[in-house]
């Protein structure tokens, strides 16, 4: 008990140890956030005047109008097809890409090339890619499928590539030691280790592509998004709500299925 006078006070080190530097960073960040808030004209007056308009807009959406069901159905089916086709393309191409993007498997120039592709594919949001592809290939689901496949490939190349980089090298070594060639080493040494991850990512990708396929139609790349955009354009908010409800329903169903399948993979 008497030893308390000699005990050492312990405090966790600050993330930035130098107190002068620490306070400088805190003050500068705070000042910039305040400046930015002011600069962006984020104020209550605008919020207040806008709210009634938003409420009015919301009112005009009800009740949802499903009268143009055939048009909605066609759009939804197109979105679904776009999602399935683009996912299939990207999960097939992802196999060589992710092997190329894995440092432990690849040779240097293939690795750099694959990584460069992944970085490019991931740095553009789908909507931007869709705009470019629509410009290049014209309206319709074709540029839409290309868009989804391209962005999905970046996603798969990165995540599957990283999964491959984290495999147990001992298992690969053992297969090499049997005299198996490169392809058979991938088949027995690498594939079994990343297969559950691959299947999980593929299902997740279908999920992502389905969501994205409902959006890129806004810039003319096919699917239900075009119909949604047109409905807003013609002030047919009730039809727009009907479309939104269908999209949400599909996404929920997809979410349910994918979580079930991924749960069984564990």
């Amino acid at each position, binding site marked *: 008990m008497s030893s308390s006078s000699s005990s050492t006070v312990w405090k966790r080190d600050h993330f930035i140890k130098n107190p002068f530097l620490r306070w400088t960073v805190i003050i500068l960040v705070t000042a910039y956030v305040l400046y930015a808030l002011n600069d962006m004209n984020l104020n209550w007056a605008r919020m207040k005047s806008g709210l009634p308009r938003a409420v009015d807009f919301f009112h005009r959406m009800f009740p949802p109008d499903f009268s143009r069901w055939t048009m909605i159905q066609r759009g939804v089916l197109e979105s679904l097809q776009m999602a399935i086709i683009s996912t299939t393309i990207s999960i097939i191409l992802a196999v060589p890409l992710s092997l190329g993007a894995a440092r432990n498997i690849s040779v240097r120039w293939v690795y750099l090339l694959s990584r460069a592709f992944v970085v490019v594919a991931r740095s553009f949001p789908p909507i931007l890619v869709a705009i470019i592809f629509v410009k290049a290939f014209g309206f319709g689901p074709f540029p839409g499928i290309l868009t989804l496949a391209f962005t999905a490939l970046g996603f798969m190349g990165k995540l599957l590539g990283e999964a491959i980089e984290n495999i*147990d090298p*001992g*298992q690969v*070594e*053992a*297969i*090499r*030691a*049997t*005299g*198996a*060639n490169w*392809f*058979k080493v991938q*088949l*027995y*040494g690498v594939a*079994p*280790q990343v*297969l*559950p991850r691959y299947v999980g990512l593929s299902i997740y990708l279908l999920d992502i592509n389905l969501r994205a396929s409902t959006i890129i139609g806004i810039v003319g790349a096919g699917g239900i998004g075009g119909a949604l955009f047109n409905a807003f354009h013609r002030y047919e908010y009730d039809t727009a709500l009907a479309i939104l409800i269908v999209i949400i329903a599909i996404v929920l169903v997809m979410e349910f299925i994918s979580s079930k399948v991924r749960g069984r993979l564990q």
Partner: protein
Amino acid sequence: MFSVKNLVKIYPTGQHALKGCSVDIDKAQIVSIFGPSGAGKSTFIRCINRLVEPTSGKVYLDGVEITGLKGKDLHEARRKMGMIFQEYNLIERLTVMENVLSGRLGYVGFLQAMFRRFPQDYVDEAFHLLERVGLEGYHNQRADALSGGQRQRVGIVRALIQHPKILLVDEPTSGLDPKTAMIIMQLIADLAKEKGIPAIVNIHDVALGQQYADRIIGLTEGEVVFDGPPSEVTAETLTQIYGEEDWSKTIRKVEDEEE
């Protein structure tokens, strides 16, 4: 039948792992390699089947210079060398049978391997070998469901189904309890004798290594410092290999077991 001439390995980090090791094995014998951690034992064994590329030196197996081979020829040479690993290195998610048959990957085509269509005689032999090591009925178990001793048995079968001319064994017992370790060493020694092939065994456990070996090689800092029968291993030898320590107990243990 097997010969290593002046093997040198310098890693890109500058580490001089092997400084000119030469070993000749002219009959089917169990060769235990002793040496402290970092002495180059693992590097030595991996330079033989070129999982690690030696910097210089030559390795011959049945008159073929392994160190000069490339591509397909190297793969074919590796088929003749069965390897058994410290951490078993089984493909965890595959079944025992798939792991065993992976030892024959060098003999089947890609599609055969992919769809698991291995020739019936390979499958027959796999069943036979599994029975021989006491794993009858385990063929459909996943490797990650097995115990350490069982895994190493699968590792032994995978190496043997290659019909190797030599066994390369890297610390086969380091993760196992003493009894299992003895059983595994006995199995490796028996099977090597049965097949009439030599085995090079890296091993930490001096007593175990002496008990099953026909010949001991001491490796220290990348150099062979001892090469002789187990009976010639004395406290001085162990000091030479591992450094100063009281070795009397370690050695007596072996003599006790032999009585």
